[in-house]
């Protein structure tokens, strides 16, 4: 298989993944006539596409929304949650920045309108013959990527076990575990994190890991896997992977919160899917890197009581890069962040802007054809905003000075950016490849757009 063929194969695969995960095609819906909006014909397909992944009997959502009987009692609440865009959880600002994401679960305005009309007209079932065939949802015990990638993980790396208390303060578990079972270097295509089911998933606030490698006596770390509500896996872009080799370790950072029931011997697992041994990807990713949203030298997180504030971190890229994902991280006072690029030629582009909601850790995965390609010298500006007033519903105490720290009541603010770095030759190739793909898709190339 030549390079181009593999490239388009992977492009096809990732499009397939997007459809398989979220399986929706909104155009289909807008073709329906207005008038009688029914559950069977109009609402059920939306719920299948955008809600049931979580709202099934074993999903993370608090109730199942598979059948009319299950959905009917929730109709008024569903109306409220979808019209305020609280559900499905998707906090990207729709008005600025790149909008094409592999894992976009958000509803279109038309879909929201349908649901609102349906509830307002008494939430009728309609003709049962119109119901779409029910979908099968994976159990909480299954690997979500198994159905997408067609096989179980090629390797599973467990954390060490931890006893989570029934009641009390949050607990942290930070074991370092050797990656066992590698005969030689392998390239990771995708990874997924899975706490035990069902209790482990309830006590795990987040479980992240980095790959730890000692090179010439120096420790190197690459942000690897992440688990948080809404986000258990990562699939790297086309032809891009992360190499792991014998001797590498996984360094875990797991945050547990007690649920009133003791959980003994909790173990989280990371599943690794590899590229075929004889077909390694052409490009290596640096994984997830944490970019500060404030300046570390002369700026400290100090948020006065009853005030709003912004901070800004400025980062100059020393190498050509491609960003494939971003994820906001704040605690209770932070309410969102934006990621902005100032290109060497002076163009300014907002790459992404997302609100922050403390119970959701959503990684926004760019579609491959829009993942920003950033020549070296590009400046990334990360702006974070904070609301330490009583208008912020999460604020535990607006009269308190808020400072940096790890406890939930302290604040933290950084952006996790999934990024790969390239030499000039690789980068030129990627830019040309991007232009080719965009042309194929009939989209004007970035260079011709007015980015400013």
């Amino acid at each position, binding site marked *: 298989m030549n390079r181009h063929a593999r490239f388009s194969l992977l492009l096809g695969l990732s499009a397939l993944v997007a459809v398989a995960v979220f399986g929706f095609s909104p155009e289909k819906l807008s073709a329906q006539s207005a008038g009688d909006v029914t559950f069977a014909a109009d609402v059920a397909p939306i719920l299948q596409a955008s809600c049931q992944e979580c709202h099934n009997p074993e999903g993370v959502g608090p109730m199942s929304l598979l059948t009319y009987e299950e959905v009917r009692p929730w109709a008024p609440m569903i109306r409220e949650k979808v019209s305020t865009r609280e559900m499905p959880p998707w906090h990207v600002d729709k008005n600025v920045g790149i909008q094409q994401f592999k894992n976009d679960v958000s509803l279109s305005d038309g879909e929201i309108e349908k649901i609102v009309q349906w509830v307002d007209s008494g939430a009728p079932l309609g003709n049962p013959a119109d119901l779409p065939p029910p979908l099968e949802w994976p159990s909480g015990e299954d690997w979500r990527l198994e159905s997408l990638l067609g096989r179980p993980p090629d390797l599973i790396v467990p954390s060490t076990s931890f006893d989570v208390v029934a009641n009390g*303060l949050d*607990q*942290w*578990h*930070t074991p370092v575990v050797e990656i066992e079972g590698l005969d030689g270097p392998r390239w990771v295509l995708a990874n997924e994190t899975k706490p035990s089911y069902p209790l482990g998933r309830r006590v795990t606030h987040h479980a992240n890991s980095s790959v730890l490698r000692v090179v010439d006596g120096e420790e190197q770390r690459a942000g690897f896997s992440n688990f948080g509500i809404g986000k258990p896996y990562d699939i790297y872009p086309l032809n891009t992977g992360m190499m792991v080799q014998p001797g590498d370790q996984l360094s875990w950072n797991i945050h547990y919160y007690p649920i009133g029931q003791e959980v003994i011997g909790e173990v989280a697992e990371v599943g690794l899917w590899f590229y075929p041994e004889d077909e390694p990807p052409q490009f290596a990713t640096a994984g997830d890197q944490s970019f500060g949203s*404030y*300046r*570390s*030298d*002369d*700026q*400290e997180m*100090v948020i*006065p*009581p*009853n*005030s*709003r*504030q*912004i*901070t*800004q971190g*400025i980062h100059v890229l020393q190498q050509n890069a491609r960003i494939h994902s971003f994820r906001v991280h704040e605690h*209770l006072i932070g309410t969102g962040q934006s990621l902005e690029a*100032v290109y060497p030629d002076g163009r*300014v582009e907002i790459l992404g802007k997302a609100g922050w909601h403390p119970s959701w850790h959503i990684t926004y995965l760019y579609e491959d054809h829009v993942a920003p390609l950033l020549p070296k010298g590009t*400046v990334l*500006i990360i702006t974070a905003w904070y609301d330490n*007033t009583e208008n912020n519903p999460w604020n*535990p*105490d607006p*009269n*308190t*000075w808020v*400072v*940096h*720290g*790890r*406890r*939930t*009541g*302290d604040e933290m603010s950084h952006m996790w950016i999934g990024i790969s770095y390239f030499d000039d030759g690789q980068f030129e190739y990627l830019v040309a490849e991007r232009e080719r793909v965009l042309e194929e898709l009939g989209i004007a190339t970035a260079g011709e757009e007015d980015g*400013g």
Partner: protein
Amino acid sequence: MSMRIGLLAGTVLALVLHAPAEGQNEVWGAEGRVDFSEFRIANVVPRGQPLIPVFEGWFNNPDGTRTASWGYFNLNTEELFHVPLGPDNFVEPAEFDGMQPTYFLPAPDDRGRRRRHESVFAVTVPGDYQGQVTWTLRVRGLTIESPSSFGSEAYEMLNIESATSSPVSPLMRVADSPVGRGRVGPVAGPVTVAVGESLPLELWLDLLDRERTIVDWYHHQGPGEVTFAQQESVVDATGEVELQTLATFSEPGEYMLRVTALENPSALVQHCCWTNGYLYVTVTP
């Protein structure tokens, strides 16, 4: 675009929006910049920034009492503050006044070290105490109150043991004090020394099975300057150790020294576990 250049030049990097007067940054109106108050994006600067009392959190004690703890954040890298106990530095209700620092070190310049001084004193209230405790500091006309948040889950902390990378507070004796541990560790003295003479500081620690402990002495209260022969020592040992150093005082008066035994700096971010000890010193002319 010129705005963007301004940003990159580092002139205006953050605004505090709709904040009360003391929380504002640079505020702009039709006449240009109309407010030049304290909070810039570069908020750690040599001079001119405020001194902030920071409520760190609270914890329950085994005897049913509860403890609240404060630290301070001096956002100046050069300016240090002496704020004697009194109208510019007090804890309310008054029965809890007296343990707070009066001497505030500048923020360290080096980036690797944390600049805030965390949990430098604590106040313990009876189990049936209702209401909050507030530490107020007034510096350069700017008054900042820091109320406790007893009962707020977000500010609850542990004191002696925790599931963190510094899981246990060591046991400590300062001079002839009883053994104490945690944030409200042992309190000793007063001992007496004359200006300019060396006061031996004796410290006994049971480090349990901690592999490394960082011990720091601080000037906590009192006029003048305190000089330590060895302000910081790093102890690579487990179990019981005895440490000694010397302090000299530049002016007569009532002083309090604070000593901390920390396993690693991440204990501060995690709010557990380490031990504070205190020594009252009377310095005679």
